[in-house]
């Protein structure tokens, strides 16, 4: 920027003196280049591959990254901060997100279910995966990894985009760990008693959507209230 030698308008001088407002080169042109790249990928998907759904998924992905960066969202911090700093604002936000998504998912599933009264139709719109000891072991390992690496799956992707070198490093090793996990499946399948058919769809297990949703929203509300209480309690101690 050529603004250094010429006399500055007073407002700009103030902006310069103001803390944490280092004048950076205009990054907008790069944003426009990036938008052109995104549009080219969308063109490839929609026109060349004749898959409008893929093009839509691509745009949703970009929107997810944008939303996470704008809101400084971090699932890891939502899990870590209640114990590390006592802050629960992110935790409460995640719970609100879970409640909103539950309403949408349950509506879609119930719509599918009510066509023929078959849980199987609703379960196609769920994302059912096996549950068992391996879920616990995997969750604990994942939680440790996310806190150490400074970002979970989405956080790693988002921070990689934001320019964090630590996440540029973490991401390839995340991929290596994933592939190692898939390659060693026969080993841990036996060791942790994995049964690929042991999936539990709550509405089916509890005999209907009513009880499942009462339980679900009840648990989410209880978790939110606990997080709210914990955050206030910690705030008064400090």
């Amino acid at each position, binding site marked *: 920027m050529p603004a250094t030698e010429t006399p500055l308008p007073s407002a700009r001088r103030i902006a310069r003196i103001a803390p944490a407002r280092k004048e950076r080169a*205009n*990054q907008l042109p790069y*944003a426009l280049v*990036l938008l052109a*790249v*995104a549009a080219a990928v969308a063109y490839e998907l929609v026109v060349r*591959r004749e898959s409008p759904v*893929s093009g*839509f998924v*691509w*745009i949703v992905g*970009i929107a*997810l*990254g*944008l*939303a996470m*960066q704008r*809101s400084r*969202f971090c699932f890891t911090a939502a899990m*870590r901060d209640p114990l590390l700093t006592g802050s629960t604002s992110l935790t*409460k936000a*995640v719970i*609100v997100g879970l409640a*909103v*998504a539950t309403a949408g*998912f*349950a509506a879609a599933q119930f719509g599918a279910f009510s066509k023929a009264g078959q849980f199987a139709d609703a379960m196609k719109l769920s*994302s*059912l*995966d*096996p*549950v068992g000891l391996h*879920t616990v072991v*995997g*969750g*604990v*390992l*994942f939680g*440790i*990894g996310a*806190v*150490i690496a400074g970002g*979970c*799956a*989405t956080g790693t*992707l988002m921070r990689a985009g*934001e320019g964090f070198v*630590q*996440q540029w490093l973490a991401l390839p090793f*995340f*991929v290596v*760990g*994933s*592939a*190692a*996990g*898939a390659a060693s*499946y026969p080993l841990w399948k036996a060791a942790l008693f994995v049964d*690929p058919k042991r*999936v539990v769809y709550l509405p089916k297990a509890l005999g209907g959507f009513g009880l499942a949703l009462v339980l679900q929203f009840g648990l989410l509300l209880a978790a939110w209230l606990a997080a709210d209480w914990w955050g206030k309690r910690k705030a008064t101690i400090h």
Partner: protein
Amino acid sequence: MTPDSELSRGPGPAATPPAIAVDQGGRVRLRERETYKTLFVNPWTYTTGAVVLALLNVVLLLATGKAWGVTTSLTYWGAWAWRWLGGQPQHWRYFAEIKPAFNRPGFDFLADAGSLTNVGIVLGALLAALLANQFRVKKLKAKRQIVAAVAGGLLMGFGARLAFGCNIGAMFTAIPALSLHGWVFLVSIFAGAAVGSRLLLRYFV
């Protein structure tokens, strides 16, 4: 610049540009306009972010029949890399039993919704940072961060396979999808985060 001229044509307050938004030539600077700041610079609240993420996840489910997931695609990336190096991941029992899509004819990076959203997230975050003029390479501050990134990345990758998902697939998607494994994963990741915090304070800070 086009963005500037576009703005000066805009209705309302743009007609009388505030002093701070004037550039050398007296033009309105796009990045200092209030509307621009509201859209692209000012941070959102956590709750706004969470609700937008939740709605996008519902949109994904309705549009494709499959909700948001991250780490299955990272597994594909690793398997594709392994194949490129001469390995034969197509014979892994994992893909035969758990993710048969991997061996479907014509299945590749651009045909995998999770790969598209994963790259989209990186690109979207970069785009958001550039639009806000906040992008900068954040260098490592200590060698310990290398160990943390490598160990943390490996643990997350391996752990996510054991649990059949990550904080998204096995939590942010699985819980709303009314699958029990989401709740079990939530409690477990919380316990893991507690252990991780101790390790972080002891070795990595």
